[in-house]
C-alpha cells in the first residue's frame, strides 16, 4: 500500500528513532541515585531483584561492556551501554557461565514466570521490614536477602559480579536490565538503569514485555552498598 499515510508515518517514526539515538549518545558521567527494586506487592522475594545505577559512559569508541575475572574466581561485568546482549551471553559462556540476558527500556519488564526460581530464594520479607526504623529488624531482613542462593551468586558490586562457586550444575543466570532513555544527572535525579539478576533452573521462556509502573521511582536515592 503506497500512500501518503505510509510515508508520513515513516517520517515521524524516523524522527523518533533519531531522537532516541541522540539520547543514547549523550554521556552522563555522574553517579546517580538508585534504589532497590522490589518485585511484587507486600511480600517480596528479593533475590528476584537487586538494583544498581552506574555512570553511563557512552562514548562512541568505548565497548558496550567489559568482563574481567577476579582473583577469587568471580566474574565482573560492567555494562556501559545496553546492547549486544547475545555477545555478553557468549562471553560469559567462555567463563563457564550459562546466562540469559535481556535489555529493555526503563519502564518495561519481562512478565514473571519465565523460569523456575530456586526454592531457597523465596524469603518472606515485607518492605516495612526492609525500611524499618529498628536497626535489628532492618539488618535481619537485609541479611536474609543477601544470603539467598541468587544473591550469593549475583551481586550488584562494582557493576555486576557473578560468583561461579555459588552456581550449581543445571542453574543458569537470568539477567534483565532496563535503561532510562532520558538523561539523569545530579541536577535531574532519576534512575539511570536498573537490573535484576537471579539464578533459575530448567528452561527459560522468551521475555514477554510488560509495563513496570514503579521503574522511575528513586526511593531513598541511596545507591546500594558496593555499587
Amino acid at each position, binding site marked *: *500500500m503506497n*500512500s*501518503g*499515510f*505510509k510515508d*508520513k*508515518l*515513516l517520517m*515521524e*517514526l*524516523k524522527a*523518533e*528513532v*533519531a531522537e*532516541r*539515538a541522540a539520547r*543514547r549518545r549523550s554521556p552522563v558521567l555522574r553517579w546517580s541515585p538508585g534504589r532497590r527494586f522490589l518485585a511484587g506487592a507486600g511480600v517480596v522475594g528479593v533475590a528476584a531483584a537487586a538494583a544498581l545505577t552506574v555512570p553511563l559512559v557512552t562514548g562512541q569508541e568505548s565497548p558496550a561492556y567489559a568482563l574481567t575475572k577476579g582473583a577469587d574466581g568471580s566474574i565482573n561485568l560492567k555494562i556501559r551501554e*545496553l*546492547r*549486544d*546482549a*547475545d*555477545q555478553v551471553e557468549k562471553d560469559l559462556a567462555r567463563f563457564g557461565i550459562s546466562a540469559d540476558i*535481556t*535489555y*529493555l*527500556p526503563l519502564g*518495561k519488564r519481562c*512478565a514473571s514466570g519465565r523460569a523456575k526460581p530456586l526454592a531457597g530464594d523465596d524469603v518472606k520479607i515485607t518492605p516495612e521490614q526492609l525500611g524499618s526504623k529498628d536497626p535489628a529488624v532492618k539488618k535481619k531482613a537485609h541479611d536474609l536477602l543477601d544470603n539467598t542462593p541468587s544473591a550469593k551468586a549475583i551481586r550488584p558490586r562494582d557493576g555486576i559480579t557473578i560468583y561461579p562457586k555459588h552456581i550449581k550444575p543445571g542453574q543458569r543466570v537470568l539477567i534483565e536490565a532496563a535503561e532510562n532513555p532520558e538523561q539523569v544527572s545530579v541536577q535531574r535525579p532519576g534512575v539511570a538503569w536498573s537490573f535484576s539478576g537471579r539464578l533459575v533452573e530448567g*528452561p527459560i*521462556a*522468551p*521475555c*514477554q*514485555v510488560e509495563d513496570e509502573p514503579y521503574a522511575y521511582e528513586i526511593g531513598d536515592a541511596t545507591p546500594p552498598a558496593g555499587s
Partner: protein
Amino acid sequence: MKLRQTGLADIACDPAAFEAFYERHFDDVTKFLARRVIDPHSVADLTAEVFLAALDSAHTYRPGRGSEVAWLYGVARNTLLAERRRSVREQRANRKIAGRRLLDGDDIARLEERIDAEASARLAIDRMAELPDKERALLELVAIDGLSTAEAAQALGIRQGTARVRLHRARRSIQQVPGIMPAIGGTK
C-alpha cells in the same frame, strides 16, 4: 553484518535500519490490524503504536528464536490488548504519534479497502469468541494470520509443544461452531 548479529537492536537507533524494517513489515502490520479493527482512524493510530512498541522491544528479538514477522505479530497483539484495556481518554493522552492525524481522504479510502478485504477474517475471529483465550490466540495467529505453529508459539512466548496441544484442542472445539470451518479455510 551487524544487523544479523544483534537482531533488531539497530532499528531503535539507526533511522536507515528502521526504514528497512518498516518497509518489510508495514503491510503485515496494517493487515493484521484490519483483521481486528474496522475503523480506519483506529488502524492508523494502532499502526503507529505497534511500530513504536517495536522500537521499545527491539532488544528482545533474537534472530535464532524465530522470524521477525512472528515476533512483530506478538508485539502487535500486545499493543492491541493494551489498547483495549485503556479508556479513550488515556489512549489520546498517551499517544506519542497520532496516526489518524496523518490521514488524508485517499489514505482513508485505501485503509477502508484493506479493512473490507479482511471482512471474512474478522467474521472468523468473531466466531472464535467462545474459545478459551489461550486457544483462540493461537488459532487466530495460525488460521487467520498465516503463521506456522512454531511462529505462533514464538509470538505468544509459549513452548512449541504447548502450542501444538492448544491448537489441537482449539480445532476440535471450533468444529462445533456453525459456519467457522469455511471461514478459516479448513484446518492447516
